[in-house]
């Protein structure tokens, strides 16, 4: 019975997030931030390649091990929606209730708050997946390229799935912070979002970064998820390939860390905010 109720909470929260994003009045945000934004970032990468010229391809191949830069960048920017949604999903879910004055009502009901939060994040992840597909299609149509290997689509799908699991756990881990940081969480997330776009190698191989920066990039599940997906699509690697052992193991370990971390930090921050009577303030 309890599981059924939890599932109902999850489903309602999930549906609410999807409806809020895609309803006519709000769809412009989705288009602007998660479709047009990544496409123009992709065009920026394409223009930089045109400026640098043919020598760029060989430098890029030597650094990254991939033959062609354009499909590399398309796959990278297709994931920018995932970054945006995971960073903002949980925090925005709580912030909008705080601003609307409804957060206290939600958090004093006996409904499972973790199911409520997971529903919000799952809704945002679904939105991100939609933007990923759109950017992949538009990018591939706009900028022509040829694949040098037969893609292993099943492994690519596993790569995307692992990325989404890892990033959901990551989103959960930072969502609870909103209860205490309140408005400052907007600033934290703004910095986190741009940092993730940079450190995870959406537009360039992370091998181009200095070693300390590469170490930071490994902390984010999406870095490894991108490596798996790119290797499966552009090199035809199977998920069981020895060369993917490091990213696959890393993303699994990171998910195993972020899931309990997210769960316990969310509960801890929520309890602290309740005890301080700080749920409502924003």
């Amino acid at each position, binding site marked *: 019975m309890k599981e059924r109720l939890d599932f109902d909470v999850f489903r309602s929260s999930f549906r609410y997030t999807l409806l809020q994003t895609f309803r006519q009045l709000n769809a412009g*945000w989705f*288009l602007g931030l998660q479709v047009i*934004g990544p496409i123009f970032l992709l065009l920026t990468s394409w223009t930089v390649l045109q400026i640098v010229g043919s020598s760029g391809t060989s430098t890029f191949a030597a650094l990254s091990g991939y033959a062609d830069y354009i499909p590399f960048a398309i796959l990278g920017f297709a994931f920018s929606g995932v970054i945006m949604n995971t960073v903002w999903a949980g925090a925005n879910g709580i912030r909008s209730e705080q601003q609307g004055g409804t957060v206290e009502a939600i958090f004093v009901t006996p409904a499972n708050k973790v199911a409520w939060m997971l529903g919000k994040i799952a809704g945002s992840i679904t939105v991100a997946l939609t933007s990923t597909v759109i950017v992949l299609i538009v990018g591939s149509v706009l900028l022509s390229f040829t694949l040098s290997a037969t893609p292993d689509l099943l492994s690519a799908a596993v790569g995307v799935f692992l990325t989404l699991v890892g990033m959901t756990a990551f989103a959960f881990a930072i969502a609870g912070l909103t209860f205490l940081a309140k408005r400052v969480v907007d600033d934290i997330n703004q910095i986190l979002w741009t940092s993730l776009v940079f450190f995870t190698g959406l537009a360039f191989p992370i091998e181009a970064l200095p070693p300390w920066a590469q170490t930071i990039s490994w902390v984010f599940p999406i870095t490894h998820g991108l490596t798996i997906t790119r290797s499966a699509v552009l090199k035809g690697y199977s998920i069981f390939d020895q060369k993917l052992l490091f990213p696959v193991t890393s993303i699994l370990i990171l998910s195993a860390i972020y899931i309990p971390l997210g769960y316990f930090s969310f509960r801890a921050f929520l309890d602290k905010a309740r005890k301080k009577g700080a749920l409502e303030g924003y």
Partner: protein
Amino acid sequence: MNPELEWLTFKGVTLRHLKEFVSYRASILATIIWPLPLLALNVYQYLGLASTSQVGQILYSKYGIASFSGMIIVGTIVYLLYNRMLWGTGAWLVEERFNGTIESLLLTPSSRLTMLLASGFSSLVEGAWWIVGVFLLSWAIFGVQPAIGDWVAVVIALVSTMIALVAVGVFFASFFVLTRIADQLATSLQAPVRYASGVAFPVAALPAIFQLFGYMLPVTYGIAALRTTVIQHGTLVGLATDLIPLFVLTAILLIVGDLVLKRLELKAKKDGSLYKI
């Protein structure tokens, strides 16, 4: 027009915005930190394809630009200012609507243009913090060496760009009143403006259609003028090609913005829909 009243309006709006800005200390710091990864992204988009010296050589031989990180930093700073104007001045009336205070604001006898200019001025003060902060941090991280030939030209380019961006804010304010989905349209325009104005490269490197779009934007001329003066030893004489279109666009945006705002306000007052704007 009563200059004393206008000054009071100007001061009141400016102080209010500045107080809002300094209310959250974390935000003040965040405003100069969050752009850095995006700036670094542009730098590494080049470095993933060629070494620093190769990129420098290519940009110099093709476009006469000696400092490639300087090119990106100047572009990013002007774009950030544009963004500040868009969301600070342009979307100001949207915020008033959201707070339920727009009706009382538009029923006061104060000049709307004075209020908008004051809002733009306070955004510029915030912008000055961004300019200095982002420039110093970028200089420390990426080691940009400014190549300034004429300080007067730098000041004129900077002031002209700032005035043009205030005009952008005033224009967008009327745009925001015109339609309730203006904030979404403005968001959708951010990435195309960033691309076409040449934040990460000279506009000449763009496909023709985007060059055409780019040359209709004041941001493009502001970036070009500051690049010329800050990293290319540009002088006042060489600035004319960028400043003349910048001034023309500034005048057009100010006049059109003010006219549209007045007309929309009048219409809303006549049909009693002021609260709905």
